[in-house]
């Protein structure tokens, strides 16, 4: 056992060295190219990034001791002609932890154009964001990537791309937006291979091949497409918005007892938000009704009950170069008594789940050093997720980052408690060109 472990560490170290060498090679190759490329106005740019992270718990039941070990090349290409904009952003990744070590993904690839002066179209692979919350989402039912989020990848990776059609109409009465996604795009959540999770059926934290979370996706049919809608207007300096979503839960929160498999139940969301300046800072309030279509009565034990969600947040600059915010979110389960009855003694969720978050950002030395900390704390679930990072912008091209993701809780059955063996620290080197 000890031997195997030593060999594994040695192998990992070897891979680490190989990745590092690869990164250095790429950087040295690209450096002399950079001035020439920009001089010619070549529209290709991007970054090379190495990310390495390790777990803090010995007994995290996942195959690797590393939470991340990857080298990423991101290339961006843009072209504007004939009134249309083309944009592509592609990642090429060498990932030591993933099964397919060499991988690539089209993060964005779209064309944008305007018709009839006031209607903007964006067609293709794209990332969509709306709503007011800071890292918490009610009416933003677009795909997220929590595996990236927990592993120290850049913030941009929290949002996963969807292949969609976006139409926005700017009228004197406000802005109407529709994002239509023909094929359901789920969240990317820890599935047991990189990060462990709490499996209620096993009653323990699990990870590795036998526990890879598999879920059944909705079939690709017209009926199963996702539609998100927003209406936005500004009233005396306050940005007001109404939202609607028709689709599915983005996490596999349903369970099919016949197939013994998790799946994505139907979901509609209706909500509203308001955001504006208040007392020298920014105040936001958002609410939504989560209509769980597969469990309208709340008595189906295998499908979540409908919910009301609300959040309020406030951000302000508390000192020069120091910004702080605080948010409170409440999730109120409808028909909680029926849920309790249907779980037959196994109910784990409270009627009211509350969450408090706070972000602190401090910049030093003319913004070349950025200290950032974000805490999620749920008083009702008694769990915590704390993330922090220090960015040092060594030059316009080179950034060094150190950071960590820490989880804690009293039970594995809660949102962050489920990941409590995944505490990790990471280091990241980014070279932009």
């Amino acid at each position: 056992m000890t031997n195997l472990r030593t060999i594994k560490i040695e192998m990992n170290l070897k891979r680490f060295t190989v990745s590092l060498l690869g990164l250095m090679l790429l950087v040295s190759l690209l450096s002399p190219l950079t001035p020439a490329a920009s001089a010619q106005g070549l529209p290709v740019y991007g970054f090379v990034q190495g990310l390495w992270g390790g777990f803090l718990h010995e007994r995290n039941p996942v195959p690797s001791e590393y939470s991340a070990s990857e080298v990423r090349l991101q290339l961006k290409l843009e072209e504007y002609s004939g009134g249309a904009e083309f944009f592509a952003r592609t990642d090429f990744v060498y990932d030591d932890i993933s099964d397919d070590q060499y991988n690539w993904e089209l993060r964005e690839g779209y064309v944008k154009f305007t018709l009839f002066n006031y209607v903007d179209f964006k067609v293709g692979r794209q990332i969509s964001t709306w709503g007011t919350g800071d890292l918490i989402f009610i009416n933003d039912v677009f795909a997220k990537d929590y595996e990236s989020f927990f592993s120290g990848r850049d913030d941009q990776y929290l949002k996963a791309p969807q292949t969609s059609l976006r139409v926005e109409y700017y009228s004197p009465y406000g802005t109407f937006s529709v994002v239509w996604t023909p094929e359901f795009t789920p969240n990317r959540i820890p599935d047991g291979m990189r990060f462990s999770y709490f499996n209620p059926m096993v009653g323990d934290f699990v990870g590795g091949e036998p526990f890879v979370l598999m879920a059944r996706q909705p079939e690709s049919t017209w009926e199963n497409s996702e539609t998100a809608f927003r209406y936005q207007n500004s009233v005396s300096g306050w940005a007001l918005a109404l939202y609607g979503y028709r689709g599915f839960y983005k996490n596999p929160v349903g369970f099919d007892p016949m197939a013994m498999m998790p799946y994505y139940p139907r979901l509609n969301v209706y909500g509203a938000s308001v955001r504006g300046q208040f007392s020298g800072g920014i105040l936001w309030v958002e609410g939504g009704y989560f209509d769980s279509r597969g469990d309208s009565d709340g008595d189906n034990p295998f499908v979540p009950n409908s919910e009301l969600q609300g959040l309020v947040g406030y951000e302000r600059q508390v000192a020069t170069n120091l910004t702080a915010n605080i948010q409170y979110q409440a999730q109120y389960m409808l028909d909680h008594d029926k849920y309790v009855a249907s779980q037959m003694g196994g109910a784990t969720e409270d009627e009211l789940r509350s969450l408090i978050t706070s972000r602190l950002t401090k910049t030093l030395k003319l913004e070349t050093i950025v200290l950032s900390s974000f805490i999620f704390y749920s008083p009702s679930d008694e769990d915590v997720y704390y993330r922090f990072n220090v960015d040092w912008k060594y030059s316009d091209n080179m950034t060094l980052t150190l950071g960590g993701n820490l989880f804690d809780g009293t039970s594995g059955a809660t949102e962050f408690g489920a990941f409590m063996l995944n505490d990790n620290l990471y280091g990241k080197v980014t070279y932009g060109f």
Partner: protein
Amino acid sequence: MKKLRTLLVFVLANALGLMAFSNANAQEKDPTEIMKKSHMAYYYAADDGVAEVNMSIVNDKGKERNRRFTMLRLDQADGGDQKYYTYFYEPSDVKRLTFMVHKSAAGNDKRWIYVPAVDLIKPIAADDKNSSFVGSNFTYEDVSGRLWTEDTHTLMKEDELNGSAVWVIESKPKDAGYGGFARKVSYISKENYLPLREEYYNDKDELIRVFTAEKVEVIDQIPTVTLRKMTDEKKGQYTTVQFSSIKYNQGIKDEVFTERFLKNPPREFVK
């Protein structure tokens, strides 16, 4: 009776206006009036403007960082509200990022940033106008201007600076709690009212920052400071800002300064 009173007021106002006009020369000794004209010349040239900006930030070890962006400005009223739009080209990690300010003469500016990688529009809670603009030695207030009415001004002397006749004016903030400076000495060109040099002192009367207009060019008949420098005297850092491809009165529409154009840059001005 009411009509008569209205007429009287009208005549009186006219007479006052006439007096003000005939006294124009004498008023040039009025430091507040000079600072107002200077503010207009520097921050409110023409009705709108577009420029490409190259910013170079040099730290105390001589290490240089660069930012390149296009800046659009639209005046709502001379000396009043303004709108700014910025599109970044460099460094590459902020390319395509846009930034917008609705500057309010009443004092509550609004700022938004658009982060294209996550399609996120975020209002910025930035109460403090003395925080650094994109990591440079210029503050937000340096970029969009501090209203002349916020300070009391004294004409110290008339002098020459690098061959230009100048008024030397001392300004002290009316608000005792203001943190940007305790005292500012401005050298205002008699020829075109542009500030050629500004010295900022802290409450211990130590020189903290110096602004210099390194180059003035006449563009579309408007004298414009095309090379600006801000030096942090205490830290030994400085930032230079080079304006190029300057164009005035482009008929920039008000709608450019909205969320729509934050997400979709106006291509007639942005490459």
